[in-house]
């Protein structure tokens, strides 16, 4: 009972400060959370403070003498046609705009979510009508319905809110309906009902938490959409009336004077854009915060890592250069002299520097601006390159640093030089240039040397272990159909590299059926894909060679490989439904590869297809070929898959769990078909299965895989008689056999298969092995021959210790 007490202790300790809760960590796990927090903070502060700080006079007092002014120290964004401050008016409109948007969205959310959820629980016919109604409403452009409803409710702020609340509810109703009807059928809801939990608990602890993420994202998006819609209505003059104004109305005023004072329209437009972004980010980040999967993932991330993530070189380069470009290209448009943006900039710089010596600017300023601008563009380029190509990130960072350093020193020197002495400026620019040049050369040298060291080390490590044994295996099987040596698949994941297929050596003789057996995660399917050269991203395949009919397919040119494998190798997959294209007729899918690779067409091709269908015992093949996969039953589909594989008379068929998705009776039929094909056409089959029973029934030899390695390679006839790998032994014992004693517990394998990212040292099976001894934890046992046809990777069998023989 002591351990139960520990659990209560843990509970007691789990009260954390808000910013350390899993919710908040997950919330901040992406930059958008950070942005959402800042933007929302600014918005809320503006909404609360604007009416307090700004007086009505600030925003309503007309001053016709100062109308339509450009930005100045008095009016940071300029003035409107009545001489009122644009910035102040934009800020002042914040609370009203937000209020309208949130109340419209709130209404739409309440109406939509309730009607959707209610519809989901209506009885049959009513439910159909409800769904239909929602669909019909959805077909109409929301804004048009809103406009129509404004006519009903009257053109006012309240009317606009009501209209949008109603017009936007169908789309939310649809979401709620889909979620509610989807979640009701889930297993965990069923299990909660069976457990006798109250409806209230099921709703609040099972349904709502599981759809909350989507609801939150949808609600925030709806609020953003409502903001846009309210502003649109105000913009059209159908929303806020009289002396009141929101952002939409400000834009209406601005659009009329777009040519004179662009900021009049652009300032409120930007405000809408930023608010929309903030709402989108907030919804996304809140949803992330509620996801328990992220709680555990982010628990290990230190705040320092976050800092590094946000302020890494590529982000700095990108944001810095963007900022510079905005300053250089965008801001001058709003300056007093749109025709001469440079002058605006330099004026700004002068004001910043506190100097009033405006006469001196012109000297040398042309060249200075040119340099600064090109510097910003280069920085942007470097940012983009380093963002997308990790390989060049470091060099870009340093180059960017040099750029920034150069630009800054130039700018400073310009200011310091009292604007009268271009020589000083030039000197400092030259200094920056040489400094950059030297740094660049050094850096390139370093990167080159790094890279060559990496490649040398990497190749060495991968190849070494298998070399020694190659000669022995080659001698035993003189002409195998397929020979793979050192087959390895490696995934470089964020959490570190894993090697799910590790140094596999195998031979398949002509006409064999070889089974590959192992638990999930043992790498058996990936081995098959690796042999077929179809390793999924980001897996990297390496091998000394993979020879099919003596040709090394790892070095074959792509075009040749396609033809060669297309006619020599076929694959059959687990799920026959999803493995066939639902939109294509069976006939098309059966024949397309033959058409491409062997250029057979027309009658001859059709005849071939009929023959292959007969091979797998599909009757009425003529009609069947014209049907679509959904018209086939599960067993028929798998037969069709096999027929498809047979079309080009391949010498090797790789069947990856071909019967797992099927019923036992169908499984038996498919196994018979495979056996027949092997016997009649001599096709070699590599059969991958987790079910050793299936393999014993049909195969002549079995490869047992564990944690990415072959641990045993043995003839089926010897499987029951000779000493085996302890894992093979356990695997066979764990199957409830038909003649076993039902009163005894089943033999099981204690423990779990190891995680590939955390393999134990030595033999991967050692932690679960009943015969384990010291050496097993120290070295990985190699796959060695114990007799001519039997290979085992176990010290107990290949090199038994003195005392182990007693067992």
């Amino acid at each position, binding site marked *: 009972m002591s351990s139960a007490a520990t659990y209560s202790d843990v509970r007691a300790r789990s009260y954390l400060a808000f910013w350390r809760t899993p919710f908040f960590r997950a919330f901040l796990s992406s930059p958008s959370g950070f942005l959402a927090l800042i933007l929302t903070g600014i918005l809320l502060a503006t909404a609360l403070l604007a009416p307090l700080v700004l007086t009505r006079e600030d925003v309503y007092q007309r001053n016709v003498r100062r109308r339509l002014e450009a930005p100045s120290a008095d009016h940071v964004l300029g003035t409107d046609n009545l001489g009122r401050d644009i910035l102040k008016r934009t800020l002042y409109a914040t609370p009203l705009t937000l209020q309208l948007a949130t109340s419209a969205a709130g209404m739409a959310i309440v109406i939509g979510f309730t009607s959707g959820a209610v519809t989901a629980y209506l009885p049959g016919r009513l439910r159909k009508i409800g769904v239909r109604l929602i669909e019909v409403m959805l077909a109409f452009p929301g804004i048009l319905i809103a406009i129509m409803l404004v006519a009903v409710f009257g053109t006012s702020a309240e009317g606009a809110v009501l209209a949008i609340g109603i017009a936007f509810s169908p789309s939310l109703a649809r979401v709620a309906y889909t979620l509610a009807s989807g979640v009701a059928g889930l297993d965990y809801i069923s299990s909660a009902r069976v457990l006798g939990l109250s409806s209230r608990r099921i709703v609040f602890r099972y349904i709502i938490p599981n759809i909350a993420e989507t609801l939150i994202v949808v609600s925030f998006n709806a609020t953003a959409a409502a903001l846009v819609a309210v502003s649109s209505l105000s913009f059209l003059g159908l929303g806020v009336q009289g002396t009141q104004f929101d952002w939409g109305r400000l834009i209406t005023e601005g659009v009329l004077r777009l040519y004179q004072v662009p900021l009049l329209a652009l300032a409120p*437009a930007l405000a809408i854009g930023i608010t929309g972004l903030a709402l989108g980010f907030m919804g996304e980040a809140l949803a992330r915060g509620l996801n328990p999967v992220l709680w555990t993932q982010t628990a290990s991330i230190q705040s320092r890592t976050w800092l590094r993530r946000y302020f890494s070189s590529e982000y700095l380069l990108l944001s810095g250069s963007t900022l510079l470009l905005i300053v250089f290209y965008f801001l001058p448009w709003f300056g007093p002299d749109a025709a001469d943006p440079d002058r605006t900039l330099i004026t700004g710089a002068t004001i910043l520097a506190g100097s009033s010596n405006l006469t001196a600017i012109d000297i040398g300023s042309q060249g200075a601006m040119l340099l600064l601008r090109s510097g910003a563009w280069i920085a942007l380029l470097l940012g983009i390159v380093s963002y997308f190509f990790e390989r060049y990130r470091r060099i870009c960072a340093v180059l960017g640093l040099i750029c920034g350093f150069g630009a800054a020193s130039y700018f400073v020197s310009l200011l310091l030089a009292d604007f009268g002495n271009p020589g000083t400026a030039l000197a400092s620019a030259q200094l920056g240039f040489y400094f950059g040049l030297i740094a660049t050369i050094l850096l390139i040298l370093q990167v080159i040397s790094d890279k060559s060291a990496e490649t040398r080390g990497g190749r060495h490590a991968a190849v070494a272990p298998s070399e020694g044994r190659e000669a022995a295996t080659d001698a035993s099987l003189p002409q195998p159909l397929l020979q793979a040596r050192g087959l390895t698949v490696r995934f470089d994941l964020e959490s570190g590299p894993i090697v799910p297929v590790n140094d596999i050596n195998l031979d398949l003789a002509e006409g064999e059926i070889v089974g590959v057996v192992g638990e999930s995660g043992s790498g058996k399917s990936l081995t098959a894909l690796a042999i077929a050269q179809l390793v999924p991203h980001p897996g990297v395949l390496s091998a000394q060679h993979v020879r099919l009919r003596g040709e090394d397919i790892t070095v074959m040119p792509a075009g040749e490989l396609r033809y060669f494998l297309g006619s020599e190798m076929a694959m059959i997959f687990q799920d026959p439904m999803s493995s066939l294209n639902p939109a294509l007729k069976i006939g098309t899918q059966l024949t397309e590869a033959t058409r491409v690779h062997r250029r057979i067409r027309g009658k001859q091709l059709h005849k071939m297809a009929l023959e292959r269908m007969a091979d797998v015992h599909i009757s009425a093949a003529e009609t069947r070929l014209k049907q679509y996969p959904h018209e086939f039953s599960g067993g028929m589909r798998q037969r069709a898959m096999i027929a498809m594989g047979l079309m080009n008379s391949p010498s090797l068929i790789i069947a990856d769990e071909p019967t797992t998705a099927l019923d036992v009776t169908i499984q038996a039929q498919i196994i018979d078909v495979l056996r027949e094909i092997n016997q009649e056409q001599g096709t070699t089959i590599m059969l991958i299965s987790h079910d050793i029973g299936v393999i014993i029934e049909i195969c002549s030899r079995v490869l047992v895989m564990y944690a990415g390695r072959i641990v045993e390679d043995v003839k089926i006839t010897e499987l029951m008689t000779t000493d085996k790998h302890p894992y093979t032994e356990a695997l066979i014992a764990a199957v409830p056999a038909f003649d076993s004693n039902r009163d005894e517990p089943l033999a099981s394998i204690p423990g779990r298969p190891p995680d590939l990212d955390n393999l134990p040292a030595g033999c991967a099976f050692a932690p679960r092995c009943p015969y384990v001894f010291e050496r097993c934890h120290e070295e990985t046992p190699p796959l060695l021959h114990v007799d001519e046809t039997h290979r085992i990777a176990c010290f107990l069998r290949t090199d038994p210790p003195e005392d182990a023989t007693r067992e």
Partner: protein
Amino acid sequence: MTSSQLTLHKSNKETLTWLTGRLGPWPRFLLKRAMSLFVVLAMLLVLTFLLIYMVPGDPAVRKAGIDASAEQIEFERKALGLDQPAHVQFIRYVQGVARLDFGTSFITKQPVTEVLQQRFPRTFQLAGTGLLIVMMVSVPLGILIGALTREGRNRRLEVVFMSVTSTSSAMPEFLTATFLAFIFAVTLNWLPVGTTQKSTAIILPAISVSLRPVASLARVVRLETLNVLAQDYIRTARSKRLPAYLIFMRHLLPNVLTAALTIGGLVFAGLLGGTVIVENVFAWPGLGQRVVDAVFNLDYPVIQGIVLYFGMIVVLINTAVDILLALVDPRTLVLSE
């Protein structure tokens, strides 16, 4: 419900099952579509008809003018048929619509049909060009980005794509329109605004109206591309060593296009909504501009007519999309049962 009603109801249902059972999948599908089209159109008529009841104030007063005499108002009431019981009014309304007679504007005294004839071509021109842009841009873009970011490749490209599209789909049409007008018309002076005379005049309105749908459709197409690429049948096609163009054209594209088509109807509805706003920014003389005027003046026949017209177009397009889908994807015929 009495028992005779019940049996009648039942036999009706049986007749229908019998009837549909005898037909092939195509006629059965078309029959069902036609029936649902009929239902939706009926709902549309009812909704627009009810508009006149929902609006505040007396339409007859509206039509006659504020300073009209009681007789004048009574006359207008008769002329509008408002003295009749509701169902008679509704029948007259439906008859009118069937004759393509949507009534006369209160303000301009112009028949609404004429307004539609004058204005709709401009709106259609704008929405059509918009749709063309949407399809031409978002489908290739979505597929391209989808292919580049499959199986978690190019994570950063994905981030860029997602942030650009989410920003653009949060961008209101009038905002886009204002920005575009400012940059291309005001600052650069490349393109004209506020006119329909020049052929280039449609460029800015069409781009403004299509930016949001482009972004949202491109996201859908990308997701669908990822989805299709992760399907087992693509792996099967690769295991058959089909050349890339065949995998793309035969296995990827049709399945992606099906998904794009499915929401194509919604996209078009969104586009039509966008035109209302954009027409007002660019002074584009379409229905959008007219409907706003009508709402200002509470010119009900015009509002009614325009909303009904838009609705019918959307419904017809959705039906067309459904039929197109059934042509492209054989499963649709079965699944719609």
